[in-house]
């Protein structure tokens, strides 16, 4: 019962995505093509984020902590 509700919700969400992005008026092969391209782009973005964001955050944290550390030594 809950699974059905969840499935209905997702199919409603997919329908919303279709009418907002004009997919509802495209032919089926165009829809598949558009969905494939969009999912590919999203997958690439997610992968890049997964690989690079922790490293960037660590580097930024070191950079700022060095500056704040510099300030605190000057103050002392």
């Amino acid at each position: 019962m809950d699974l059905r509700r969840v499935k209905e919700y997702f199919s409603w969400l997919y329908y919303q995505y279709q009418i907002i992005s004009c997919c509802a008026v495209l032919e089926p092969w165009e829809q598949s093509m558009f969905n494939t391209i969009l999912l590919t782009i999203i997958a690439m973005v997610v992968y890049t984020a997964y690989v690079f964001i922790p490293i960037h955050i660590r580097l930024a944290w070191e950079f700022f902590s060095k500056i704040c550390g510099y300030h605190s030594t000057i103050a002392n």
Partner: protein
Amino acid sequence: MANPGGGTVCNGKLHNHKKQSNGSQRRNCTKNGIVKEAQQNGKPHFYDKLIVESFEEAPLHVVVFTYMAYGIGTLFGYLRDFLRNWGIEKCNAAVERKEQKDFVPLYQDFENFYTRNLYMRIRDNWNRPICSAPGPLFDVMERVSDDYNWTFRFTGRIIKDVINMGSYNFLGLADKYDESMKTIKDVLEVYGTGVASTRHEMGTLDKHKELEDLVAKFLNVEAAMVFGMGFATNSMNIPALVGKGCLILSDELNHTSLVLGARLSGATIRVFKHNNTQSLEKLLRDAVIYGQPRTCRAWKKILILVEGTYSMEGSIVHLPQILALKKKYKAYLYIDEAHSIGAVGPTGRGVTEFFGLDPHEVDVLMGTFTKSFGASGGYIAGRKDLVDYLRVHSHSAVYATSMSPPIAEQIIRSLKFIMGLDGTTQGLQRVQQLAKNTRYFRQRLQEMGFIIYGNENASVVPLLLYMPGKVAAFARHMLQEKKIGVVVVGFPATPLAEARARFCVSASHTREMLDTVLEALDETGDLLRLKYSRHKKSARPELYDETSFELED
């Protein structure tokens, strides 16, 4: 103390606000004083009527998504065009023959880009054939397409009893035969169907004279002339009224017939912002001060072209301000009352009556009989010398066949019905029922949270949809699931980002029908997420009638 909605302070503030916005001389008059002054002047006070219009802006994300959707559609359009050009896909649109490839192109490929790639995909929502009278309920022929809307075929089935929210049937007079139409049968027996001549030759019947006298009496003007086609009334008569050396100031959103007539006339055309009296005043001042472009001579005539009710926006023209401007700068005014005659005003006489103004102040009153009278054709009314001039010089009178006699009789019957000359008050009741239906419909839609454009008294209700995908989904859903026929409009009839559904409320819609439609709209609005309005409740002040305002002393 019981207050009719809102506190004393609120009412007091409201009343002061209304008074201050008048700018007239009755500043400190009491209620009785106001009434007395109206009686002294003999003119009704149109300043009392606040023009309540709303043109709400869409939320930002909606606009972004709309443009994004059009962008995706355009990209796919390019892809499909590429495939069609390179022969990978069959081209269903019109193309030239191979032998003509080197000639001057007949079909400009890019101009039809939008039609070919976007409109074709959702084309099944337009040009739907119907097979009954366009009354409050009608029958739609079912049709399907096998190749994505390039061709259609009828399945043979008929979708019966679809609620009609699309026909311009404001007073419900466009309906099947009933006993009151007996006079039309008699006229058909005596006169036949065709006139087979133009007005100048042998096409002026006594029916036309009777109709013209009745129209003049209805509008309270000196004379009127009727023509066989509403569009042709505008496009063929404006060239007869203005010519080279004249100036036409036309509203941004005027109908194509007015634009065509203005262009055919050869006069200079300047456009002012929709219903914007400041823009019009600026143009008038420039015209009077600087005159014609190169020679700086005075303009021979300045004609202001407006419509009574604009059907795409649902707005009513700001007539009092425009009349004031016209008098100040000595211009002429031409009002096209196609959608407002019979539908607006306490007895259906149009925008002049709606604002309580004298119809003699407008120079040319034009209207059509298609919308509220259930017939076809148009009229031009005004002073007798104007109409006599048009009788001689109008292109329509010289070249176009005159109005068919049964149609003329239908208009005569409708006019008598509305004016009450047939002995009943049903006509007046219908006009009032239309006003009630309009206000109810608009108010409920606004409460539900849709974005509605226009004046609260206009019976054409545009409901904004914005996204092209939603436009198609809305129209299909309403017809197939809910059995309600609606008209949706998109580019190029409206701006690109403002696609809308346009409802025409009719006096023959019963309260139950309207409630059915409103419920269906509610559900569809939730399904498609169309409720963009950010003012959930009606934020505008109610119009309180002066005489019922008991708390004033």
